[in-house]
Every structure is written in structure tokens, then in C-alpha cells.
């Protein structure tokens, strides 16, 4: 028996190595995302923690907000002192806007700042037009209006929306570069509240049999609380995930950023590996033949 066991081991060693392809970059028009995670820069306890978390997340694009007055922190430091503009694409958002008009104003202000930096994100905007302060859910009418105007003004629009599949197609049709359905409301950490809705968004936007285009980017945005939430989004077929609070408000933001990165990779590979179908009845993993139990 011993010699046969060794023989089997030798056979295993001679088996060809299976190769697993590296996760490809995500191309969004002129921006190349080397990571499928896009990470926000808000809510960190301090800039140093933010900087370390961004590094641990492996992201290549970060979101920022446009605000008055808080031009520097209490120590006279700007957030831009802690973001390597040669390394990260900076995506300004329109967070806090409750009308299409304000969102367009803020987008143009953000563009003006990034043009001074000569950053790749200068023609980009992460569009949010919110409906109210309690839910922070998007206002679909205002979102669509702002999206159309920004696209006509030359912006590449990454558009935050609810998980409504029909709305997702309307935003695509309005010219958005990328649709970003919410997993759950901003900052709630409730994860992918309605996986079926996200799946329908992805089907309509990406599957040719449903009028979609496989290359059209869908990035799940908002509500992510745990690494497994990121994995679920990616397993549904999303091209990426955008998150902020799930990392920034974790007890250990830097380690959580690393966990989110690994979870994103896991979901990417999981989706493309072809999961088994769900079944009602059990099927044994070990063979019935040869069992000595119950003889």
C-alpha cells in the first residue's frame, strides 16, 4: 500500500499546472481601473488612516466631495496632501445635492479643481441627486435630468441610482458611462438588500438577450457593510463595487480595506467560475459505493 501511495503522489506532481487568469483592469472610457474597488475618502478618523486604508484596498480611483469653507483641516492640512494624484484617479461626487441644477453646479466646480491638478478624473463625475436626507435615496427625475445635462457638457458620468432595473436602463440611455445601483441606502451597511433587483439591473444592462452590452460597466455603490457584501455584488456579475463607510467606520479601517479587496477578488472569480445550481434535495459529496456503514 505504501508504494502505491507514493506512486499516486508522484502522478499528482506530474499533472499540468492549472492557470488562473489575473483579474483584468476595468476600462471606463479613458480611465483604467486596476482594481474593481472604488473607495471613498470620507469619514476616516484622520488622513493618515485614510491614506493607509486606500493603500490596503488596492484601489486606483477614489471619490471626493466638493465643499465650501473646509479648505483645510484643523491642522491646516488639505486632503490632497494625502492623496497621491499620480497614483489615484480622483472622482468628484455631487453628494449633498437635492436638485439637478445644484448637481450640475457642483460637478463643474469639481472639474475646475481637477483641471488644475491635471488629474485623469477631471472630466468625470460621480453623480448623486438625492431625494431626501432621511433615506439619501436618489431622486430619479433629478438624476436623469442632471445626467443628460452633464453628458451634453462633456462629462463622463458615473451615475448613482436605486436598484430599479428600468431606471438603470434610462440612465444608460441618457448617456451615463456607468450605472451604479445602490446595494442599500448610503451608509446603512445593510449590504445587497435586494439581490434580485441588482441581478435584473445587470441583466438588462449587460446581457445581449435583454438588450444589454457585456462591456457596459455596472458598479454597485452604497450600503456595503462587510466583505461578504462586496463578494455578493461581484458574484451577481457587477464589474466593481464602490464603498466608503464600510471601510472608514470599521474599528480597524486598514484591515477592513484589505478584507474588502480580497472579497472583491473572490466575488470576481466566483462569478466567472459558474456556481452550482441551487437544489432542494441533498446530494452526497462522498461515494455511496464501498461504504461499510449499515451493512
Amino acid at each position: 500500500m505504501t508504494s502505491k501511495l507514493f506512486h499516486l503522489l508522484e502522478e499528482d506532481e506530474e499533472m499540468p499546472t492549472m492557470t488562473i487568469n489575473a483579474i483584468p483592469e476595468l476600462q471606463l472610457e479613458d480611465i483604467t481601473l486596476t482594481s474593481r474597488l472604488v473607495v471613498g475618502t470620507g469619514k476616516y478618523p484622520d488622513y493618515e488612516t485614510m491614506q493607509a486604508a486606500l493603500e490596503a484596498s488596492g484601489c486606483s480611483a477614489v471619490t471626493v466631495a466638493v465643499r465650501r469653507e473646509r479648505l483645510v483641516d484643523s491642522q491646516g492640512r488639505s486632503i490632497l496632501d494625502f492623496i497621491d494624484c499620480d497614483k489615484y484617479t480622483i472622482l468628484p461626487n455631487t453628494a449633498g445635492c437635492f436638485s439637478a441644477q445644484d448637481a450640475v453646479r457642483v460637478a463643474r466646480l469639481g472639474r475646475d479643481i481637477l483641471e488644475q491638478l491635471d488629474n485623469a478624473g477631471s472630466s468625470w463625475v460621480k453623480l448623486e441627486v438625492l431625494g431626501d436626507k432621511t433615506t439619501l435615496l436618489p431622486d430619479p427625475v433629478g438624476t436623469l435630468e442632471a445626467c443628460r445635462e452633464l453628458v451634453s457638457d462633456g462629462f463622463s458620468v458615473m451615475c448613482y441610482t436605486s436598484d430599479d432595473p428600468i431606471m438603470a436602463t434610462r440612465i444608460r440611455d441618457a448617456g451615463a458611462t456607468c450605472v451604479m445601483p445602490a446595494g442599500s441606502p448610503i451608509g446603512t451597511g445593510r449590504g445587497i438588500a435586494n439581490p434580485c433587483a441588482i441581478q435584473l439591473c445587470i441583466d438588462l444592462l449587460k446581457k445581449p438577450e435583454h438588450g444589454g452590452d457585456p462591456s457596459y460597466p455596472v458598479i454597485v455603490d452604497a450600503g456595503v457593510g462587510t466583505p461578504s457584501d462586496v463578494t455578493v455584488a461581484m458574484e451577481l456579475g457587477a464589474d466593481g463595487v464602490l464603498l466608503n463607510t464600510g471601510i472608514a467606520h470599521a474599528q480597524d479601517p486598514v484591515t477592513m480595506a484589505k478584507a474588502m479587496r480580497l472579497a472583491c477578488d473572490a466575488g470576481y472569480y466566483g462569478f466567472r467560475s459558474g456556481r452550482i445550481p441551487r437544489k432542494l434535495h441533498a446530494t452526497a459529496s462522498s461515494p455511496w459505493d464501498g461504504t461499510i456503514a449499515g451493512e
Partner: protein
Amino acid sequence: MITVNGEQIQKNTILLTDLLLQMNLSDQLCAVEVNKKLIPFRERDAYQLLEGDDVEIVSLVGGG
């Protein structure tokens, strides 16, 4: 009076670039809007603020 980021200042007229200098913002990365209209950074030097103008000066902060 000119309003800057919601606060009135005792000026009737001033060059935008001088206002930024007085606020120690000339070296800061920021964008400026006057009466809800963007003043591109390349046009700031020649832009004259007038009585009643409402100025917004913004920059980038952390956000999601």
C-alpha cells in the same frame, strides 16, 4: 457688500484674485463660483467682483 461663502464682507468691489490673496487662498486648490456661475481658474485674474455679488469658494474634502 459682497457675500463670500455665506458671509458678508465689507467690500464693494475687488478683483477675485485679490480676494483669494486676502483670504490666504491664492495657493490653495479651489474653485470659485460667482452668482452661481463658475469662474474658470484661468479667468480669475481679470475677474472683478462687484457690489452684491455672491461668491462661493470650494475645494475638495473627503467623500464617498
